[in-house]
């Protein structure tokens, strides 16, 4: 990484710590084995619910609802991953499309709105700059859940209730502050001489932003994209109230309809869950190093 924002230097864990421990400490083999055992237990606990999910997703309905269940599937019914899309409880293909559309457009909107704001506040002093950044911090602490009744009435009044547009706006607004924050700290990490040199060469402010700054803050942008996308993908509270038509609802809301049913098709719930969880887990793993910087940028010293 060519440019690192100050806040992140202390946060990137592995390289130096690792070197120090291995070379200077010379940990005895017994201790290493003990650590591996502890690590293995942690690993087992954290993947357990998702392993249960996966095993459940390939069982038949009678297997998953049998009175004396088996821990492991005795037969592997991969066809569940096809059959689940036509379950009667909720139109799952539409729910998946809804999740994708809302998440993609909300993320795009966040990028479009947050990037210029982050760039400008990192590069220029102007009256109200601190007020703006303070506003960003405060909204970062607010979540849709606490404002749902207000959002509900507002979108009824705007005649946008039960539309994707409403959820795109809500997701974008509540994830905006985080994106501004993290991109701001990356932009602030670029020496201003880089910009000035380009401007002396006759580049416009927009050219500087797109040709010079963006490539340097790319890691920050990727982090912002992933965080926003995953947050939108999993959003629940506002969607629950704003989207009332089954076909408009995202997967997170649609799946709750299976709970408390007389005969829940758990194998389908889990199949859909696996499909919904795997991509975002991979996305999060890609930005592992910057996960913390993300939520706490500017606060962890």
């Amino acid at each position, binding site marked *: 990484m060519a440019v690192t924002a100050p806040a992140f230097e202390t946060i990137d864990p592995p390289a130096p*710590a690792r070197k120090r421990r291995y070379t200077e400490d010379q940990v005895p083999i017994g201790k290493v084995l003990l650590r591996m055992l502890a690590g*293995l237990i942690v690993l087992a606990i954290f993947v357990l619910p998702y392993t249960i999910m996966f095993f459940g997703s390939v069982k038949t309905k009678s297997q998953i609802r049998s009175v004396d269940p088996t821990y492991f599937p005795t037969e592997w019914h991969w066809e569940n991953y096809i059959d689940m899309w036509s379950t009667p409880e909720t139109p799952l293909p539409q729910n998946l499309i809804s999740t994708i559309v809302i998440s993609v457009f909300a993320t795009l909107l966040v990028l479009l709105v947050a990037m210029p704001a982050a760039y400008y506040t990192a590069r220029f002093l102007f009256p109200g700059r601190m007020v703006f950044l303070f506003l960003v911090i405060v909204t970062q602490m607010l979540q849709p859940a606490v404002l*749902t009744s207000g959002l509900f009435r507002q979108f009824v009044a705007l005649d946008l209730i039960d539309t994707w547009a409403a959820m795109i706006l809500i997701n974008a607004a509540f994830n905006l502050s985080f994106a501004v924050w993290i991109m701001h700290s990356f932009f602030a990490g670029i020496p201003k001489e880089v910009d000035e040199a380009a401007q002396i060469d006759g580049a416009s402010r927009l050219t500087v932003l797109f040709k010079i700054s963006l490539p340097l803050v790319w890691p920050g942008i990727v982090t912002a994209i992933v965080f926003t996308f995953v947050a939108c*993908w999993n959003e629940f509270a506002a969607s629950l109230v704003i989207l009332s038509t089954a076909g408009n609802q995202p997967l997170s809301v649609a799946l709750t309809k299976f709970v408390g049913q007389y005969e829940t098709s758990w194998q389908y719930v889990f199949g859909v869950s696996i499909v919904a969880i795997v991509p975002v887990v991979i996305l999060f793993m890609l930005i592992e190093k910057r996960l913390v910087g993300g939520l706490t940028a500017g606060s962890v010293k």
Partner: protein
Amino acid sequence: MSTTSDASSTRAGAAESRPRPGGSPAEPGRPKKRGGRDLLHSLPWIGPALILIFGVVLYPAIVMFYNSTRDISISGIDKGSVGFDNYVEVFSFPYFWPIFGRTIVWVVVVVAVTVLISLGLAQILNKAFPGRRIVRLAVIIPWAASVVMTTMVVYYGLEPYFGIINKFLVDIGLVDTPEGYGWTRNPATAFAWSIVVAIFVSLPFTTYTILAGLQTVPGEVLEAAKMDGAGPVRTYWAVVLPQLRSALAVAVLINIINVFNSLPILKVMTGSIPGYDADTIMTMIFKYIQNQHKVDVASALSVVAFVIVIVIVAIYVRVVKPMKEV
């Protein structure tokens, strides 16, 4: 509000104390008259963000405050002002104070246990061992995965007869009959299991924040403590924990906000139990909106919740002083 004045003092202090590498060329001794024009120049850049923040975060908050004093019919028609009647309805609801108390238990227990476990987890993940990276990646999973889906697998696991967790508890002898305990049928046990799930999904963020804090503990200081004959426990209490102060402050406050606002876990685990014996303020708001269609009363309770959140945020700004790093 006191929040604003506190913050503005922090703000002013921060702006003066921090040398900014990225300032515009004209900024040292910035003439005051240019202020207005500078603000105007900034609008194309920060304007869209302002519109989104005001339009979809602050305006709904105002709508919510306004609606909390109105009489809104089930079909959504505003029938005029009722003063503080909605608040009276919120506070005179016989289950309100139990719900309020449960909310405090919910937040305090989840956050406290999460932080304690995370301190241990971070300690393990900070040690070098083969395969550490895989363990670290595994810890991320509940963070990225939908909380609804994680909760649903636990809900299924606790089902009588066929639930896998219930079967395991029967197999190891903790539960007597395969019928199980009716974990998700009984408000108290369903609430207790919700706490377990909430802790589980809060661990990744908390652990990673503490892990980041651990990187700031200088190796030499640890060496020095070792030389002075301090054992690992003593070193941890005297050297490591004080260094984790700011990381812990962030983790605790963000967790408080998240756990207070959390809806999906209780919605899935306790949502199908009749009555109000497993509700928190947040699930109660949604019961007013969805089951009773009382948006006005829901708004009043939301305002109460909003005020609680604002107080927490004020403490956050005070303790952590996030503007320092801007």
